[in-house]
């Protein structure tokens, strides 16, 4: 690129005035020379939209997909990342429902879960954040700032052929912005009822532009739930039903992402992230826990990825990451101290190759190796040994366009792990565009969930003592669905009916042990759900989700499977842009009554106690402004507009009443 313009280099690093002057000089000389060379026509350009950057069309994906983009995240006014999934049809989200290890949110597709929902795989930029100890995801511990997220793709339904075990009921793919899209300075300030946060970001690049980076740092002070339950089930102060859990937390966040373009085809991406701080734990209602148990959490990861764009439009990538999840603290109960330290580590190496066999067939295949180890004496029977887990995978998916309007996806994953041995999980799907803009999808997918380290450690002694006959096995699901996607002038419709047959569900309670079998659970989930996007007017949009599902099960080993799925779940989000400055949004969520495995019995010992259905409304009003080169937005968010006091997941878990906060974001 001879003699080419160097104007863009002038702009950063100078004082404001100096910068402006230099910039205008640069622009003038460039205006003189810029079109005067053939370089623009002849220069080699880097492959930017490589295969892995291009998302598959929703109507050609082998499963139902909900895409949540950054605008939707912002306009929904969510405070926690987990809350945004309330907008996904069928997603059961409950606030701070876990009551030990971490006081975090639960996100479970359709429910059928305890608070540590283990049935979804969650990836951030291709890195699994599925926790090695209890499984599931510690949502508040993910080192990612909401403002750095570009979009989230939620795959509704099992997808082990692409994402491996634990992609059991769904997959959540969180994708952050490329550093070239987050150049400059950005600040977000939030303050309001029980919530404060500061996030600052700086994005820069080197002179030649082949290296871009982003640094994001944040501090969050979250007071969680109100300490007193307003609508307590019991009015007797002595039974402790009037107190919410201890769930305050302070979070320090730091993330770094560096992307380096080696040449026009090769790219390196490095990420580091830290999320940690002091947090409370404990049931305030328990008379023996009159003070919160304070813990310190430290989570971080390092990730390195190399990508090469291949000549035929394919891509080769190699990725390594290390994840580190830890929390420290000594809890005392009745004068006895317990070491509650947990350190869980993960190393993962993956190679992936995408290529075209011919014009109508594309193939992606690859393999990965993983090693987890967990140190958790209090959960491992006081053993201080690190429990290891090894995993090896081979996967492949063939996309065959048999006809311009007919796409087949055939995929499978072969897994071998040190807990349950070898398994193969296939998936087949056909997408037929029977009319322009209208697609019918039929798919069948099989998936497994590998027992977690905790489940394995709990199960091993039963086998050693001969109390159970069989080793712990993976949980299984066989899922069949028929989906329809339609585009009408202002309306996008996504509708599907599904039937998920679960078997070998793990139950580790007295009943299952006494029956000598730790995989006794079976359940069939049938239902339909829909997702609508309606552009009501040029400046008004409505997003609506509805899910209806029913479970049939013999409720083996006294597991309340038939109650653990709310029959209906609804969500809606209405956004309107009043003018170029004012915008507003209104969200509504409704959850049917439900009794989860750990919902527990009510105060009167009622085993069939249901957590009541509830409705919640949130709103956000924003004002965009510009002052010089600073662009900003001031927003008022009100959650739980109607000040509804309801329970989520358990009778001793009441999310906050009406809460408002102000958020100021600006790009400098």
């Amino acid at each position: 690129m001879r003699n080419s313009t160097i104007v863009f280099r002038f702009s950063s690093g100078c004082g404001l005035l100096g910068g402006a002057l230099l910039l205008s000089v640069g622009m003038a000389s460039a205006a003189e020379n810029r079109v005067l060379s053939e370089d623009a026509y002849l220069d080699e350009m880097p492959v930017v939209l490589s295969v892995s950057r291009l998302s598959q069309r929703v109507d050609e994906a082998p499963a139902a997909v909900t895409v949540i983009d950054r605008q939707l995240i912002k306009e929904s006014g969510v405070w926690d990342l987990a809350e945004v999934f309330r907008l996904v049809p069928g997603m059961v989200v409950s606030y701070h429902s876990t009551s030990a290890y971490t006081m975090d949110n639960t996100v479970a597709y359709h429910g059928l879960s305890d608070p540590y929902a283990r049935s979804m795989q969650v990836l951030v930029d291709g890195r699994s954040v599925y926790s090695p100890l209890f499984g599931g995801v510690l949502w508040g511990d993910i080192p990612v700032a909401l403002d750095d997220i570009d979009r989230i793709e939620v795959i509704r339904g099992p997808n082990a052929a692409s994402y491996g075990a634990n992609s059991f009921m769904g997959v959540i793919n969180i994708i952050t912005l490329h550093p070239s899209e987050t150049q400059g300075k950005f600040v977000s300030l939030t303050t309001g009822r029980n919530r404060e946060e500061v996030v600052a970001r700086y994005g820069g690049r080197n002179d030649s532009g082949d290296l871009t980076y982003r640094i994001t740092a944040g501090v969050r002070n979250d007071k969680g739930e109100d300490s007193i339950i307003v609508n307590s089930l019991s009015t007797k102060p002595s039974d402790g039903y009037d107190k919410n859990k201890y769930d305050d937390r302070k979070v320090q966040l730091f993330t770094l992402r560096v992307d380096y373009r080696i040449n026009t085809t090769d790219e390196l991406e490095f990420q580091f992230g830290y999320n940690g701080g002091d947090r409370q734990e404990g049931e305030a209602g328990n008379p023996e826990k009159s003070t919160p148990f304070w813990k310190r959490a430290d989570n971080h990861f390092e990730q390195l990825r190399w990508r090469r764009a291949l000549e035929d439009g394919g891509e080769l990538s190699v990725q390594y990451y290390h994840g580190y999840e830890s929390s420290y603290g000594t809890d005392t109960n009745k004068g006895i101290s317990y070491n509650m330290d947990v350190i869980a580590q993960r190393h993962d190496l993956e190679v992936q190759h995408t290529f075209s066999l011919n014009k109508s067939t594309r193939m992606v295949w690859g393999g990965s190796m993983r090693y987890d180890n967990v140190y958790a004496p209090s959960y491992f029977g006081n053993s201080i040994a690190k429990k290891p887990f090894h995993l090896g995978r081979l996967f492949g998916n063939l996309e065959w366009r048999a006809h311009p309007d007919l796409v087949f996806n055939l995929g499978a994953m072969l897994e071998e792990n040190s807990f349950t041995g070898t398994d193969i999980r296939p998936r087949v799907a056909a997408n037929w565009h029977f009319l322009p803009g209208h697609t019918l999808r039929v798919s069948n997918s099989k998936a497994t969930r590998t027992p977690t380290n905790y489940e394995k450690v709990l199960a091993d002694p039963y086998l050693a003592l001969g109390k159970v006959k069989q080793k712990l096995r993976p949980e299984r699901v066989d899922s069949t669905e028929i989906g329809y996607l339609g585009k009408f002038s202002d309306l996008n419709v996504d509708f599907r009916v599904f039937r998920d047959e679960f078997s070998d569900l793990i139950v580790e309670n007295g009943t299952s042990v006494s029956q000598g079998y730790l995989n006794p659970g079976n359940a069939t989930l049938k239902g339909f759900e829909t997702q609508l996007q309606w552009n009501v007017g040029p400046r008004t949009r409505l997003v609506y989700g509805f899910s209806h599902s029913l479970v049939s099960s013999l409720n083996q080993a006294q597991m309340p499977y038939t109650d653990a799925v709310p029959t209906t779940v609804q969500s809606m989000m209405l956004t309107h842009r009043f003018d170029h400055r004012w915008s507003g949004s209104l969200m509504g969520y409704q959850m049917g009554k439900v009794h989860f495995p750990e919902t527990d019995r009510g105060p009167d010992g009622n085993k069939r106690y249901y957590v009541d259905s509830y409705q919640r409304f949130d709103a956000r009003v924003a004002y965009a402004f510009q002052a010089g080169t600073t662009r900003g937005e001031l927003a008022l968010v009100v959650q739980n507009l109607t000040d509804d006091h309801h329970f989520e997941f358990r009778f001793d878990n009441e999310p906050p009443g009406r809460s408002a906060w102000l958020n100021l974001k600006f790009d400098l």
Partner: protein
Amino acid sequence: MHYWRFLFALCLTLAMLCLPLTAAALDGVTVVLSEEGGAYAQVADKLRAVLSQNGGTARLPVKMIALKEGDSLRAEPGQLLLAVGTEAMDELAKKKLPQPMLSVLVPRAAFEKTARQNGRLGDPRNFSAITLDQPWARQFALIRQALPGRTKVGVLLAPNSPELATALSAAAKVAGFVAIIETVDGEADLLPSLKRLLGECDVLLAVPDPLIYNRNTVQSILLTTYRHQVPLIGFSPSYVKAGAIAAVFSVPEQIGQQAAEIIQRLAADQRLPLPQPPRYFSVGVNTQVARSLGISIDDEASLNNKLKRTSEGEP
């Protein structure tokens, strides 16, 4: 009798057609490359290949020299100078040699500037060019054929491009499009301008201005455009590879072909044709990007044919 007269006339015509080359009015071509190798050499190689073909006319010797050997050039009647690239054009123009000069692989603005600086603007018959810029009409034809129904064409321009903006708007109007032009005031303004533009247009047309489109900016432009689900029309094969949905461009061989044809057709007095846009062109399509955007697009060959048919009416 009529038969003989007709044959005589035909012979005369053929003889006249062959005259410029056979009558030794043009003895040879001196090619000066801005750089050795690469696109420059591809132009020259194609030119040499065409001119050395014995297609019924005498072969025309092609002498190739590097820019640094340009000092050896002297006034040489019967020779045509072919400058390949802006640098070669600039250097040769400064020498003010009497032989006619054709510049290729140069943007139109560069040619006009050099001609102006050297007082050759009014001398197109001796100082001409095949410019790199594809005619606007051809680019709009590509949009019409590749992305039917999309009529709001967004264009990012650097400041001080009023002539470009006017020409573009006029061409868009003629072709039945609306050009929405956003001016980028410096680096910091690039993404905000782009985002504003993407809110209003349904296709983005990249105009080869290194101030806006260069290796530093291509990443953020393509990613942002893709996020807004707006297809981008590029201007080179490498843009198509990078992530533009399509582009119409002329590869060096096509420029070489056109140059060779001009040379073969030179009249006895060696008068060059007026500066002209590329005659031969190719269409590139990125099917992966198209598929991901949910756009069904014709393949390269059929778009090429459609564009050729529409461009036959072009000047």
